[in-house]
């Protein structure tokens, strides 16, 4: 399975084919590799890297929104200020909490749903569609509906009361609001994970299951020894992407805070992205906001790096 085995040196050119310019080009991993990367790289350099560098420079500047040409370089001041702001650390903590609650839950839920709708059962197309609906519906709408469902005295808050939760309006209570956001994220993201897993399940060679069946393997054994190794690379994708998206969660929090301050109630749902949004956009402190995103970028980069070490195939 390792990629390094697929090395151009390991297989000799075919003796019966005449060596033309094209075939030698089309055989070189290096040349074909760069040719295939090129469309992406051009678009990326033009529409991501160049603007990113412009924003990167801003993070070392004190910049007024109205007169961006008059920006002054202030070295690391923005970063120092952020690292002295307890609200930033509170925001980082909230982001981590959301990710820790939501990512494992939605990954397992997504895989479970994919397995369910991958069976030969009646109406699987409809169930696939239903499980996918929350992902495609506007998050503001989903949040609005959840806000109607999770308010004081409704069926749901009473139901959760059985497990020791108080009968309160969840998004208005500083101790429940963050869990509320995590639930919203799980609900949305599980459909995404489901269809990615669904595609992965199609790739599992069927004869493997058949062979295992002949050997008398149980359902659990098949899942454990055939399905799991096959979906492992894609699990790394599902987990790291939902981590990244979990860090970027914004629409749901904006909807909760619609008539108040972002991160309502009382900053209980502030995250790194709402922190960036408040300072960089709302307070028009563009340099400071860019610096906050850069810090946030490095946090996710480290987490993704660790996840890769733990989960991805060895190369």
């Amino acid at each position, binding site marked *: 399975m390792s990629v390094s085995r697929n090395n151009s040196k390991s297989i000799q050119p075919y003796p019966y084919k005449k060596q033309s310019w094209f075939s030698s080009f089309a055989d070189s991993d290096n040349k074909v590799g760069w040719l295939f990367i090129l469309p992406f790289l051009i678009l990326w350099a033009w529409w991501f890297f160049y603007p990113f560098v412009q924003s990167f420079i801003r993070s070392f500047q004190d910049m007024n929104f109205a007169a961006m040409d008059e920006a002054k370089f202030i070295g690391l001041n923005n970063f120092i200020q952020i690292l002295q702001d307890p609200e930033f650390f509170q925001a980082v903590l909230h982001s981590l909490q959301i990710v820790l609650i939501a990512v494992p839950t939605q990954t397992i839920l997504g895989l479970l749903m994919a397995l369910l709708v991958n069976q030969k059962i009646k109406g699987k197309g409809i169930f696939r569609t239903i499980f996918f609906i929350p992902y495609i519906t506007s998050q503001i709408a989903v949040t609005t509906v959840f806000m109607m469902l999770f308010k004081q005295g409704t069926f749901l808050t009473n139901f959760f009361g059985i497990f020791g939760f108080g009968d309160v309006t969840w998004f*208005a209570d500083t101790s429940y609001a963050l869990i509320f956001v995590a639930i919203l994220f799980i609900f949305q993201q599980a459909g995404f994970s489901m269809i990615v897993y669904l595609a992965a399940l199609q790739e599992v060679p069927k004869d493997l299951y058949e062979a295992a069946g002949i050997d008398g393997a149980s359902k659990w054994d098949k899942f454990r020894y055939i399905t799991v190794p096959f979906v492992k690379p894609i699990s790394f994708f599902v987990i790291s992407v939902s981590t990244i998206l979990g860090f970027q969660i914004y629409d749901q929090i904006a909807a909760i805070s*619609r008539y108040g301050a972002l991160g309502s109630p009382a*900053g209980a749902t502030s995250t790194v992205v709402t922190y960036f949004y408040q300072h960089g956009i709302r307070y028009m402190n563009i340099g400071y906001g860019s610096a906050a995103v850069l810090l946030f970028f490095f946090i996710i980069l480290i987490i993704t790096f660790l996840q890769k070490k733990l989960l991805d195939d060895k190369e």
Partner: protein
Amino acid sequence: MKKKMSVLLITMLTITTILAGCGNKEKTTSATDPAVKSTTPVTVSLGFWGTAQDLGIYQQAVKDISAVHPNIKLEIKQYPSSEQFWNTLPGEIAAGVAPDLIKLTNEGAFEYIHKGLFEPLDELIKPAGVDLSLYNGVDIWKVDGKQYALPISTMPAMFLINDDMWKKAGLGAYPKTWDEVQAAAKKLTTKDVHGIVINIDAFHITNYVKSYGGDWGYGKTINSPENVKAVQKILDMYKDGSAVTPKSIGYGWDGEVFANNKAVMTTGGYWYKGYLKEANPDLHYVALPVPEGTVHNSTMHSDGYVVLKDGKNKVEALQTASFLTSEKVLTEFVKVGNNPSLKSLSSKFFEVNPEFDAVKPAIEYSTDFQYPIETKKFIDELIKQLEGTILGGSNKTAQEILDKVQEQFK
């Protein structure tokens, strides 16, 4: 497979060509040549966000303006929301495509004026031929002696009471002071209904503050004794259970609570009329001036047209603003609930909206918001501290809350 690939490529190419075509067309039609300025009209763009009715009025104005100002071609740029406008503006300014003129409310304008986003109008007034003496609310838009906007409307805050519930409780005369409000609220509160809804929002808090003779003093007097007294009153009403926030019973804003008969009283404004007509047409309400704490005072809302500093044709922009505040156009705005800034129209609003008659005296004494320069930061911080106490149980006193906010605005 080859076929599949070529089909994909051809589709791709076709689409690119179509897209490029659209792009070019757009470019040529929107190009305006400054060299022919004297002969062809100047384009003034108005940035706006608002309702379908507002859009209709502006679209009519686009047609009508050439009769009055043949030198101006008006262009409307509609933004889906104010948030979207402020998101886009820095890019627009940097790219030199920002609108020349925008409609703004005074509640957030001070911050932008201070950041140098708008052009002072004083130098433009004469060349544009505008007469400020025709307008009410001119002073609201004056900062450091300079005029920053042509006012469109002026409207004081109100106090609204659900008349059916009030009468049913047999409470008699409407309250004139916050002490009377509190006493009534206690009597009106039942298991399901709260006497008063207080939205934790700067607009509402500011009205309490002003009625106790306080104000924010642009950030200098946030924790003044008057302000502390006002905020303490709010906290007291929450504490005795007669007041509620919209959020804690699952509503978005005070109007929803009021329309659903979950609270009998609230602070609010002229927008209640339009909302209640939709949300609960059977509800009878009375609109009163904001009750007294120690003095008669409340906030004054004013919409105005400001000219952006980075715009090109500033004189024409101001001429457009004066056209948009002419009697004909403003009469249309009266119909959608705005009290017009033109003195000649001032009686008209109360003719069309008799339910607001009791609020008329408040026009005389209501004043601007006087938020600190960093308005949005101040509003966020104030809300955060109050929510921490009311929704988070941090149990701070009014003095502690306002001291905490004051700390950040020295």
